[in-house]
């Protein structure tokens, strides 16, 4: 075949490739990149959404870091949420996957049941848990009442008390651990049975097989869920917006909630955009650190 025909064919293929990728590229550039770049510009302006943005340099960033106590409060709340919710979510998801990685009758039904909360709207889920956690007549306090009596305790006020509100939302979030469970299960089923058989020959019990075979081989999916959890965790908003309104005493006033209020209540779009960029940098730094640690904690196959 002549070189020019090959070139022509390449061009045609490239064209077709771009044509098929066009919907995604259009979305990325017009619906994704433009707002991202616009928000970067706006973060250096004073913009109340009525008058045109006015350039003020880095003042928004300076104010947020040096003279905005709620910024630090909301960031602290979010870090607390991420620090507890992510490891806990990983553990519960993994435990569920280990539990459901068995060949017993009706296993697909159990797996579906655990995954089901992920298809429930987060608004409906929040309202449901509001009922369950309601201190006076909620099911959870009803179930715990013998425990309260035994230890002569006041019933927990869950989302209504500043001391327990954040943990309540974290506990509620575990209901959707079935999402990561599916990923773990998929990887667990890829682990060669021969490894377990060899271990059995060596006399390994279930615990040892899990510790020395399953978990090390699961690290790529654990790492994936960890990164996704960090990114999602820093954006926590909806459950607090619906269940607690950021309270009590701003105890569930998360970073994204404050960003939303800066934009909608204070009409400070410039400040809100600056917050969005700070959040991006925070998540980026954590992700980069995690990726650097990747090679030490994630099993990527035997070196030859």
């Amino acid at each position, binding site marked *: 075949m002549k070189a020019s025909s090959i070139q022509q064919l390449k061009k045609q293929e490239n064209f077709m490739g771009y044509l098929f990728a066009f919907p995604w590229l259009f979305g990325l550039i017009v619906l994704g990149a433009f707002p991202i770049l616009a928000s970067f510009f706006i973060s250096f302006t004073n913009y109340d959404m009525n008058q045109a943005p006015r350039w003020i340099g880095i003042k928004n960033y300076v104010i947020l870091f040096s003279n905005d106590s709620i910024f630090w409060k909301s960031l602290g709340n979010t870090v607390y949420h991420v620090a507890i919710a992510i490891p806990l979510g990983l553990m519960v998801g993994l435990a569920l996957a280990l539990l459901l990685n068995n060949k017993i009758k009706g296993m697909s039904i159990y797996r579906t049941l655990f995954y089901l909360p992920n298809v429930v709207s987060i608004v409906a889920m929040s309202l449901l848990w509001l009922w369950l956690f309601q201190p006076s007549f909620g099911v959870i306090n009803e179930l715990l009442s013998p425990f309260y009596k035994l230890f002569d305790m006041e019933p927990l006020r869950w989302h209504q008390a500043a001391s327990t509100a954040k943990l309540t939302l974290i506990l509620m979030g575990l209901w959707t651990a079935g999402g990561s469970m599916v990923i773990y299960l998929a990887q667990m089923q890829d682990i060669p049975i021969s490894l377990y058989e060899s271990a059995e020959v060596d006399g390994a019990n279930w615990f040892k097989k899990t510790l020395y075979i399953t978990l090390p081989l699961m690290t790529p999916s654990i790492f994936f869920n960890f990164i996704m959890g960090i990114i999602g965790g820093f954006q926590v908003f909806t459950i607090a917006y619906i269940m607690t309104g950021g309270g*009590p005493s701003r105890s569930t006033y998360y970073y994204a909630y404050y960003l939303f209020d800066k934009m909608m209540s204070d009409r400070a779009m410039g400040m809100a955009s600056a917050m969005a960029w700070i959040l991006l940098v925070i998540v980026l730094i954590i992700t980069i650190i995690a990726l650097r640690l990747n090679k030490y904690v994630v099993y990527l196959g035997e070196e030859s």
Partner: protein
Amino acid sequence: MKKFLVLFTLFVFGLVLMGCNGGEAEGKIEIEFWHMSPVGSESYSGMRAIITQFNESQEDYFVKGKGFSFWDYWDKINVAVSSKTAPDIGLSTIDDVVSRARAGVLFNISELIESDDSGYLQIELDEFRQSQLDFATFEGDLFAMPFTATTRALFYNMDMFLELGLTEEDVPETWSELKTVAKMFDIVDDGTIERLGFDPSYGDATYHGWLWQKGLDFFDEELNPTLNTQGHIDVLNWIIDFNDDLSRSQLTSFGEANQLLGLNPFAAEKVAMIIGNDGLYQTIINAGADFSYGVAPIPIPDEDGIRVNWGSGFSIEMYDNKKNDNDRLNGAFMFYKYLLSKEVQIELSEVNGWILSHISAMEEFVEGKPIMQLLLEEVNYAVDKVYVPYAPSWHGNDWQPYYTQALDRSLTPEAALLQARNHYLEKQQNYNTVN
């Protein structure tokens, strides 16, 4: 069969296209009006009838109404105004008209009135309260018109009063009477509140509302935060101590239980007295409640009390999207005048149950409605909150965390007020830095 299916599909497609061709609007200038009567709401058909009535009287203009729920409306209108996609006419809050007028997103209503030679209706300015018109005025010109005249009052359950041998004479007029009477109604069973007489933090009662009755406020005339006087502390203490025989967790659980059940505690006969606005009248009707009740002025402090309540009315505004379309502007102004005419204001009140701003229209509307008559009387004592540019939500997001901490006693009133004041000062300082 295949042919039939193809023909049937084409027929359905044709019908869909016919439905999309604009119908009545064809050849007319389309005016967009945003309101709070969405499809499915009780007021939707009434609002639609009012718009249709206007459309049928017009040869050149066609108004397209778009209803949003109260909760969705604010974000949508704010974003639309910012992106220059606002409707021709919409509702907003009257206390911050000036900020929009200053930003140039509103048409100058005074100029439109002055240059109006259409001969179609007139806005009768003397039919609107000056106190409300002042909020809609920027640099001497009107940039909006008052639409609703919201008011707050004390709603009391007459059946519960009679049950305890009390009469209309016993309806409290002062803070001390309010507490004495309220305590008679409390029923607590096994630690759970079954019925509550009154709580000054429930319903539409607000801290700033109670402050106003004492001649106090959050801000001074220069909009600097105050909140640090003994008067402020005393009022907050009065609210906290009102139900000091009950814990805050009992009160919060009682309030949340009603909220989760979608009940208004007064309409559900869970509280004997509550501060409500004119919307509560409609809520009680919609709830199908059959108890007898009355409305009275909000009780005032025993000494030097001021009869005042928080108004929080809506304005009706014409948005300037910089399209320079005079025909559309003329049509929109005609519809604007129509909405502010006496007859239509009465119809709108019947549809929404709101007290609207047209004085004589409302006097006519409340005839034969004793509760509404009393509420209308309270409109004369209604005051709108001040707009604070550095803290537009000063009474909401900014204040609530400190208020709830004071209520549940995790902060002393002194500390809560001091922290709130510092918060406002911080916001003021930051606002001044970037403006």
